[in-house]
């Protein structure tokens, strides 16, 4: 199945927009994803392997937090996972911004 990687995280997938994984559940797909792109792990999971609260994962157009079986939801080859990051950009990455994002 296809996992769609948002721009901010593509630095950890060698620039790839989508990563093909084979998995039978959402959790399986995420595990397979971080196996192929180990650098992604700390951006998606906490140290005790829970999905970070600011990372949203969608199975097709549904937020997995609202699926009855959440990460354990079964998936097939035609499903798509999409990772939705928090982005804050809007007016500028201005050096005059009172609180720069992180650089």
């Amino acid at each position, binding site marked *: 199945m296809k996992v769609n990687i948002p721009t901010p995280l593509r630095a950890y997938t060698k620039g790839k927009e989508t990563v093909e994984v084979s998995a039978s559940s959402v959790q399986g797909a995420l595990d397979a994803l971080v196996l192929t792109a180990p650098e992604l792990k700390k951006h998606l999971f906490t140290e005790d392997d829970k999905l970070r609260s600011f990372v949203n994962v969608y199975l097709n157009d549904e937020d997995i937090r*609202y699926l009855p079986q959440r990460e354990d939801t079964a998936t097939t080859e035609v499903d798509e996972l999409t990772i939705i990051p928090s982005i804050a950009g*809007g007016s500028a990455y201005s050096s005059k911004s009172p609180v720069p994002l992180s650089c």
Partner: protein
Amino acid sequence: MASATALPETGTELPKLTNEEIARYSRHLILPEVGIEGQQKLKAAKVLCVGTGGLGAPLALYLAAAGVGTLGLVDFDVVDESNLQRQIIHSQSTVGMLKVDSAEIMINGLNKNTKVVKHNTMLTSANAMEIFKDYDVIADGTDNFQTRYLVNDACVLLGKPNAYGSIFRFEGQASVFGLPEGPCYRCLYPEPPPPGLVPSCAEGGVLGILPGLVGVIQATETIKLILGIGEPLVGRLLLVDALGMSFRTLKLRKNPECPVCGTHPTVTELIDYDQFCGIAPPASVGPLEVSSHGSVDSAANIVDGIPQVSVEQLKQRQDAGDRPFILDVREAHEYAIVNLGAPLIPVGQLSSRLNEIPVKKDDEIVVHCKSGGRSQKAAQELKSAGFTNVKNLAGGITAWAERIDPSLPKY
């Protein structure tokens, strides 16, 4: 059609259109979905644009063109040459001017009847409710997480719709938050990402037209809310990918546990959003950027265990013949713009390329990036990898260009 509407049913009469206005808005008036009454609603409407940057620029211009009667602008910044790549509400002739003043010139050039209310201030927990209360729709076009949460919470607390837009490089997001029947920003993102995990200027930048695309979507949603037509992006998140030129919408749910819009809210007034986002408030003295990343030991000028070197100190030492090893941790495309001749290992690759560092573990290393944030992170990484004498060049190559070698370009 179930449509959210922004205008309270006050029973007050809508303002009449003058003959001049009827001529001006004729292409609206002949649309049955707008018509005279819709145009009158636009004239009565008050919209607040939070930020007059990339998103706020097209947003405010289209709202003015469409006949929104009152536009509030919140911005404390001044126009910089580098803004003009995308912030089309400003112009070459207004560089250096306050953004709210510059925007007013362009807005009133487009529509002399638009009433512009200028809020030349930083939006804070102390002033947000007072500023927001007079507006029907709030359009959030800010650039940092603190203000995103602040705008969201103020909108939820006041029951006002928030036409949300956000951009990053080639990607955008848009939605309408804050209406009682729909989810809010916190339902989507309960917590902000910790500083440092957020993609930084290493991956930053934005395609100039992208805020145009997303800002116009915000303007469209704002106008639909005012007119009460169509299906606003309530409960939906629009994802825009400018490179693939694809648009997708995802379902957003109202989180019953949401601390601000849920059934048992715990956030019932505005909070300290710098603290919530794990960021120290802007310091009045000292290196702003560094102080936002951790505890600053001002006496020794050590931040989180990393000594900070000023560009003046480095220059002085170099002039005296003392040349510590300098490492540039920016990206290759930034190096191509300007560099100090130091070897380059981008911060994201540092852990796997430690063997390329040509000095011994106890030798001095001065790390630099564009403005000091990434190099601080890199210095900490080097320190934990066993390098014992790692320093951060405060202010980075930007400070070098500003204070040591003004012949260098700044970006």
